[in-house]
């Protein structure tokens, strides 16, 4: 095994071009488990921890450009306002020790259906900035997950950053597991209200071969909110609408039975999480409306 230690992003891209089988290692919280248990023996480890740029983020007008290696701890502490869904999801990852090392770049690299960043990214809207010596491209998050633990990166590409749309309304993230800490999701659900576009986006984790959006549920809810004038009148959403939304979210799942839960439990639980997160975010939307009306 060779340990490649690029000092800059350009060096890292050159190394990845020269050795496409090299395994990038950032926080190591997925890679080292594989190596410790001899599940993988890469020919080259490509250490990304010397590249300072990957640990930085920039808050723009529309989105946050989040460096691939920014640890979850930083996201929780520093980006709660701009990226509330991702900050909440980050807080549910593992433990402080893991959150101090692991980040969204590694979560995307692994592309596990249980990865906690994914539902939050799907709900907020995001693009993955992938780069190689051939150039840079932005992969829409909806096209990024291509199969169980597979993603759209080419062998010579690395993730430079993720551009996550800044919240324009309330966001939530909820996860089912046996403990608060150190839990790989049995299933998980992210929800973002987008009052500016009068739309709603979702992300479902651990309930299909890849993280997915519940598109039919999103479309149904957007139409129902529109029709009832809910965005304008700020009324409590009709219970039958909430129920239909939850059922459609459960229907978007294509889960499996495994040690963490059965398929039918997962489907049921996703419906429950969808209902809860919709209630929480809508209450928060109504509260902020009242505040802004009170101020006007």
């Amino acid at each position, binding site marked *: *095994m*060779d*340990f490649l*230690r690029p000092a800059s992003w350009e060096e890292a891209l050159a190394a990845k071009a020269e050795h496409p089988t090299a395994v990038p*290692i950032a*926080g*190591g*919280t997925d*890679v*080292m*488990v594989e*190596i*410790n*248990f001899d599940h993988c*023996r*890469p020919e080259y*480890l490509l*250490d990304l*921890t010397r590249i300072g740029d990957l640990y930085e983020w920039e808050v723009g007008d529309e989105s946050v450009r989040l460096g691939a290696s920014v640890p979850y701890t930083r996201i929780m502490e520093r980006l709660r306002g701009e990226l509330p869904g991702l900050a909440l999801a980050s807080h549910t990852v*593992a*433990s*402080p*020790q*893991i959150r*101090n*090392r692991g980040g969204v770049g590694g979560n995307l690299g692994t592309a596990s259906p249980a990865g906690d960043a994914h539902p939050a990214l799907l709900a907020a809207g995001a693009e993955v900035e992938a780069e190689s010596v051939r150039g840079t491209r932005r992969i829409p998050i909806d096209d990024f997950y291509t199969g169980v633990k597979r993603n759209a990166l080419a062998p010579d590409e690395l993730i430079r950053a993720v551009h996550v749309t800044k919240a324009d309304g309330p966001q939530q993230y909820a996860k089912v597991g046996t403990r*608060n*800490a*150190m839990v790989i999701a049995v299933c998980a659900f992210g929800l973002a209200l987008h009052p500016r576009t009068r739309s709603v986006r979702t992300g479902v984790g651990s309930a299909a071969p890849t993280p997915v959006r519940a598109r039919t549920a999103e479309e149904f809810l957007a139409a129902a909110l529109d029709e009832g004038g809910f965005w304008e009148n700020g009324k409590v959403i009709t219970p039958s609408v909430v129920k239909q939304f939850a059922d459609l979210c459960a229907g978007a799942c294509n889960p499996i039975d495994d040690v963490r839960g059965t398929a039918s439990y997962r489907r049921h639980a996703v419906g429950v999480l969808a209902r809860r997160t919709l209630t929480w975010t809508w209450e928060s939307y109504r509260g902020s409306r009242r505040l802004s009306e009170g101020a006007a």
Partner: protein
Amino acid sequence: MRVNFTVNGRPQEADDVWEGESLLYVLRERLGLPGSKNACEQGECGSCTVRLDGVPVCSCLVAAGQAEGRDVVTVEGLADHARRRACGTAPGTSLDAARAWQPRGTGQDADAELAPVQQAFIDAGAVQCGFCTPGLLVAADELLEHRPNPTDADIREALSGNLCRCTGYEKIMDAVRLAAARQGEGA
């Protein structure tokens, strides 16, 4: 490969390191510092917790080469680390001193070899089999460094990555509360 880094305030060098090796393995097997424990090797148990450039991490999940040029504090250097925090300077802990370390310090002697958090664990009876203790000490010490007056929720969260199979955690909570209270009195 060779790894040069700072361990417990002193420069160290580890030779013949395999590229896929963990920082934990380097500490235990190459430098002879068995304080950081090797249990799950997958980041679940926290018994290998060390500070890497000040940040608590599972040393089993840090590749040895990633520690190059970095600053590591293990449980063997915790007393020295606490002294540096209190006095601004401390001599660091040599490998020999770390290997010869004994849990003395139950007395009141001035150069007690225990960090306040270690003394508190002993006084509160928070140590049973002792296997999880080093990781808990490193995590608890870091909590108290940043949050001198932690709530119970803060303590639970800070220690949520450290498993203990003996104590049921109550005495550990007591120990951290005790260390915080003593730290407050001393200030």
